[in-house]
């Protein structure tokens, strides 16, 4: 052993001596230059041919060169041997080998064509076109002792990566499905499973490469994405997460407990969430998928707010800063496999939400001759109880793909509030229960090489409202100008809506044709009446204050999209044609209507990329719409304590045109970005709403047959430049908006105009990659003009400072402040938040403080046609919350 070592050392030493000797000798010798030319037999220069120079032993490569475009090559050697071997190799020509003297020389190689089948290279299908392969990884072979959840083991499996947010990638691409025993319980929220399911309950992980979730398309369309499937150990596996947070003051809590159960045929995930920290968890029910947003645009609103308890509209700040709530959300999700092809998914939500809000509002209204100002203080309570159930049946077979959603919703909402206005106190109470049922069916069926898409939507809902106001309002209209105890407005809407359509995807050469045709039928009944209560005697008002209206509306449509795209231009067009047939049956027969209309809705847009820096965009849209049924009632309805409203006008058509244009200059290299855009929209309507404002601020609103045109201009410019030496970005945003329209107030018809100018310079300094400071000034002016005379001008200078840093990835400090002065009052709002996340053994601890300077109110301004609102909201006080999150 020792001798081997010595021998080895000796060898190394002698080799070193040899190398040094060679080096010394080379410094003494002159360099030998081997150059020359490579051509084909015909004398054509050959480029990119390898020329290699070996020592005479034919093993040690000492120099090499590549032939250039002219076939020339040149390299130099520095060795003491008397000869060299020069080899020429390439893929398409014969290899050659020559022994030459070790002197500078020019060599000429004339090579014969010889396309080589390289040894060891087999013909393989490119790895990119594998089909439906399943790889199985056994968890035991990859799991380490310290791993807890299946995610920790997934990270160790070849080809699989887990991003910090939990997203799973296979070969660098996001997976398209995450199954547990072949069932997709969580859809895109699969991190709840991967982060929590203990490694011990999983036996194997299957990677389904090129996974096409729609069986119908399996042989037709290759998917490039993979799916994962977890195989569960025998027996039931229950797991879950919990997070508990408590804070002050007053006592605050935020609890979220989410248990899950997995078996081969039934999987359940439920959750219980409750907080009083202003976190509106009920928003979780609204799934904001692309599909949902698109289909919602074509459908009637889910809830019709006929009557309301008057309250200020929510401010633009985050709800967690002002919302005083107490919410409980219970959620139950179940996925059952009825057969290998048919899956039933049930999602049931129950929410109980109590909210309190205190706001004060100053409302100023301008007419050519007058300025009216009213102030109101609101103290409102809201209690929402909602049960929402969704059942989804999915049939995924070779012949077709069918998806059906049933939604059932039942709500028991009550709202109450007191308003103090003009020294009087008014109490409002509203009950608006909701019952709703809807069904949506989507089916894809192959016909030859093409695919038919059938969609059917059905909705029935009932949404009665009951608003009671004490003391009674509108004495002049409702009680012969005598004060009275109470007024009650009842409305009831029953609605039936169905939309059925069929579409086809046809492929003809490079064109794809996707026409869609459908029929919408809507039937709606509106009942309303007003009752007046004096000394405990209830009287129903005459038919002028009641409605019994039935609408039947049939609409047939044909729509289509066109897209044309080249290197520089994208052209997009959207065209639709609608025939409407409408029948209105009113209990007052003089308001019955029958009409038929043919309307269109078209838009065209062009995007032109002029160079890498410049691009331009322009669009034009023309749209025709008929009146909203919910705004058509011949009898008066008391919409809230201070609005009494009526619309006697027949159904009319509104025509809207929109022009947009935009030019952009984006230079990434010098980080200089500029956008200039302009939008113009104009609407022609057959009617104008008219307000008769009483001395106490209450209004009687009717529709007048005065045609009006409202027009909006909007110009915006934005410029931003990053200075890398100063690590600073300077930007400036300027916008100007003008809205013009016609209003009728107290029988005077006048033109209104609102002008808004905003100038917003911003400086942002990136002190380090983990520290950022931002200051911006928000200078705005809102002007209201009545018949070209300026009536109001509000100018605000808001200073905003934002600062955040994260010295470590688990710590975050965040500071924002907003300061402005209005009507000689300083308003300062400071929010400071520090979050420390302590992660160990899968337990996260977090500490969060907010509104450290305990600012109590926030004011915002809003202007529209002839009114300006100044609203002040009560904010949540300084609070500290500590939370712990763990898995079980």
């Amino acid at each position: 052993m020792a001798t081997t070592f010595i021998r080895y050392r000796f060898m190394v030493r002698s080799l070193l001596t040899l190398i040094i000797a060679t080096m010394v000798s080379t410094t003494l010798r002159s360099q030998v230059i081997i150059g020359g030319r490579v051509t084909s037999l015909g004398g054509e220069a050959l480029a990119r041919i390898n020329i290699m120079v070996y020592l005479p032993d034919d093993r040690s490569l000492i120099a090499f060169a590549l032939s250039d475009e002219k076939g020339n090559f040149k390299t130099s050697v520095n060795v003491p041997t008397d000869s060299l071997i020069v080899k020429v190799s390439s893929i398409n020509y014969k290899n050659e080998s020559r022994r030459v003297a070790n002197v500078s020389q020019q060599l000429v190689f004339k090579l014969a064509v010889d396309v080589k089948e390289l040894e060891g290279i087999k013909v393989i299908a490119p790895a990119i076109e594998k089909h439906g392969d399943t790889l199985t990884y056994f968890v035991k072979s990859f799991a380490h002792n310290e791993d807890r959840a299946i995610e920790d083991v997934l990270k160790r499996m070849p080809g699989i990566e887990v991003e910090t947010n939990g997203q799973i990638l296979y070969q660098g691409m996001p997976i398209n499905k995450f199954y547990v025993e072949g069932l997709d319980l969580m859809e895109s929220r699969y991190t709840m499973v991967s982060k929590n399911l203990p490694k011990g309950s999983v036996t194997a992980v299957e990677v389904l490469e090129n996974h096409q979730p729609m069986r119908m398309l399996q042989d037709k369309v290759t998917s490039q994405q993979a799916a994962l499937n977890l195989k569960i150990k025998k027996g039931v596996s229950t797991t879950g997460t919990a997070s508990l947070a408590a804070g002050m003051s007053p006592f605050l809590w935020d609890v979220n407990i989410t248990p899950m159960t997995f078996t081969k045929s039934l999987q359940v995930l439920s959750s219980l969430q409750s907080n009083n920290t202003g976190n509106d968890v009920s928003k979780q029910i609204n799934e904001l998928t692309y599909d949902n947003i698109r289909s919602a645009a074509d459908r009637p609103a889910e809830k019709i707010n006929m009557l309301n308890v008057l309250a200020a509209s929510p401010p633009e700040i985050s709800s967690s800063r002002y919302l005083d709530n107490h919410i409980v959300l219970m959620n139950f999700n179940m996925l059952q496999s009825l057969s290998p092809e048919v899956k039933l998914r049930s999602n049931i939500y129950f929410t109980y939400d109590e909210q309190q809000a205190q706001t004060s509002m100053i409302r100023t209204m301008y007419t050519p001759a007058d300025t009216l100002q009213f102030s109101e203080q609101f103290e409102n309570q809201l209690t929402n109880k909602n049960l929402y159930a969704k059942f989804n049946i999915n049939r995924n077979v070779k012949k077709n793909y069918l998806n059906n959603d049933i939604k059932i919703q039942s709500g028991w909402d009550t709202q109450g509030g007191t308003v103090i206005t003009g020294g009087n106190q008014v109490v409002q109470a509203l009950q608006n229960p909701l019952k709703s049922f809807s069904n949506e069916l989507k089916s894809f069926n192959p016909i030859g090489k093409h695919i038919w898409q059938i969609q059917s939507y059905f909705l029935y809902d009932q949404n009665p409202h009951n608003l009671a106001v004490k003391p009674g309002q509108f004495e002049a209209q409702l009680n012969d100008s005598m004060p009275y105890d109470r007024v009650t407005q009842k409305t009831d809407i029953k609605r039936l809506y169905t939309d059925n359509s069929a579409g086809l995807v046809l492929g003809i050469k490079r064109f794809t044709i996707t026409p869609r045709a459908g029929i919408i039928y809507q039937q709606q009944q509106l009942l309303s009446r007003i009752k007046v209560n004096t000394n405990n005697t209830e009287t129903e008002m005459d038919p002028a204050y009641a409605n019994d209206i039935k609408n039947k509306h049939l609409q047939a449509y044909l729509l289509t999209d066109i897209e044309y795209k080249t290197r520089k231009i994208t052209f997009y067009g959207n065209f639709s044609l609608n025939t409407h047939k409408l029948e209105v049956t009113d209990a007052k027969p003089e308001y019955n209507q029958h009409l038929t209309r043919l309307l269109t809705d078209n838009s065209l847009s062009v995007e032109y990329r002029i160079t890498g820096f410049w691009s331009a965009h322009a669009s034009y849209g023309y749209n025709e719409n008929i009146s909203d049924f919910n705004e058509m009632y011949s009898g008066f309805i008391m919409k809230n304590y201070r609005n009494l409203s009526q619309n006697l006008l027949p159904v009319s058509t509104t025509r809207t045109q929109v022009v947009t244009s935009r030019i952009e200059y984006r230079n990434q290299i010098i980080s200089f970005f500029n956008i200039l855009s302009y939008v113009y929209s104009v609407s022609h309507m057959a009617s104008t709403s008219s307000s008769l404002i009483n001395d106490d601020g209450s209004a009687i609103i009717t529709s007048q047959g005065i045609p009006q045109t409202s027009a909006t201009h909007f110009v915006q410019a934005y410029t931003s430049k990053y200075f890398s030496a100063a690590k600073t970005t300077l930007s400036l945003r300027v916008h100007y908006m003008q809205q013009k329209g016609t209003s009728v107030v107290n029988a005077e018809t006048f033109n209104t105009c609102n002008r808004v100018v905003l100038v917003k310079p911003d400086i942002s300094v990136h002190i380090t990659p983990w520290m950022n400071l931002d200051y911006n000034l928000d200078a705005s002016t809102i002007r209201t003009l009545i018949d070209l005379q300026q009536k109001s001008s509000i100018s605000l200078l808001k200073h905003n400072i934002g600062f955040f840093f994260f010295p470590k990835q688990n710590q975050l400090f965040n500071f924002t402040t907003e300061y402005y002065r209005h009507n000689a009052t300083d308003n300062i709002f400071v929010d400071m938040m520090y979050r420390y996340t302590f992660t160990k053994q899968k337990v996260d601890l977090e500490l969060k403080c907010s509104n450290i300077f305990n600012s109590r109110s926030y004011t915002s301004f809003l202007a529209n046609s002839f009114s300006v609102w100044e609203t002040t909201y009560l904010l949540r006080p300084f609070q500290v919350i500590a939370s712990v999150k763990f898995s079980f």
Partner: protein
Amino acid sequence: MMKFTCLCFTLFCALCSSAQFFKQNFLILDQVKIIATYSLHYMEDSTNQAHIRNSEMLLLLGNNVSQFESKGLYMSDTIIRKLMTQEQVQQFFMNPQSPMSSITYQIFKNYPNGKLTFTEPIPGTNLKYEESLDIFKWKLTQETSTICGYKAKKATCNFGGRSWVAWFAPELPYSDGPYKFNGLPGLIVKIADTRNQYVFELLSIGKPNKSLPVDFLDDAYLVTTKQGFFKAQDDFRADIVNRVKAGGATNQMQQIAAQNMSRRNNPIELIRK
């Protein structure tokens, strides 16, 4: 009359089609003779040595021009190209969520002659630059090894602020390799920097079973230099807060973006100027 014309036009359009007509200009530079796949293990965050990302890379070798990019990008590109066929449009129609790869550059070697073309998008813009192929001063050593069944020789060079060790196989007479690496008399079968922060290793090599082009999407690129590209890339990283803010991100989203971006601090080429 105007209204009638308008209606007729709509009716015509509605009846005739909803046409999606994609016309992308691909320049066919060569035909693929050999496909080499490499694994790439790299350290994206030099402060978190434990987090090693991996990706599969493709080197499509033609007689004159080669194309190098991630398998993920190649696959999503293939989808977009196949949109010209109706099946793919149908698929796209039903699943608009398309896959994305984390490595988005493409390198075309010997296009144009004697140079390489590098393209990579920075959100909002596709950038392109050319660089000489002849930038590697390789030093040969006499060490040999067997990698993927090929006898390989070792060579070293300095490039982009890192010292690289390459293993090349003279029996595969392609003077090419992963990333920009080229110029050795044989295909590079393994290359890594001496700190092992970027490691490319040959996984498989084979011939395509059908004809595949080496092609270049002739898009509206912003043409720049290597330094210009690095400046754009570094500025984007440094200025991430404002870039996402201009896109309408909330305060919290800006902080998350800054946190995520601070983890990407170890580019393959460290010399940025």
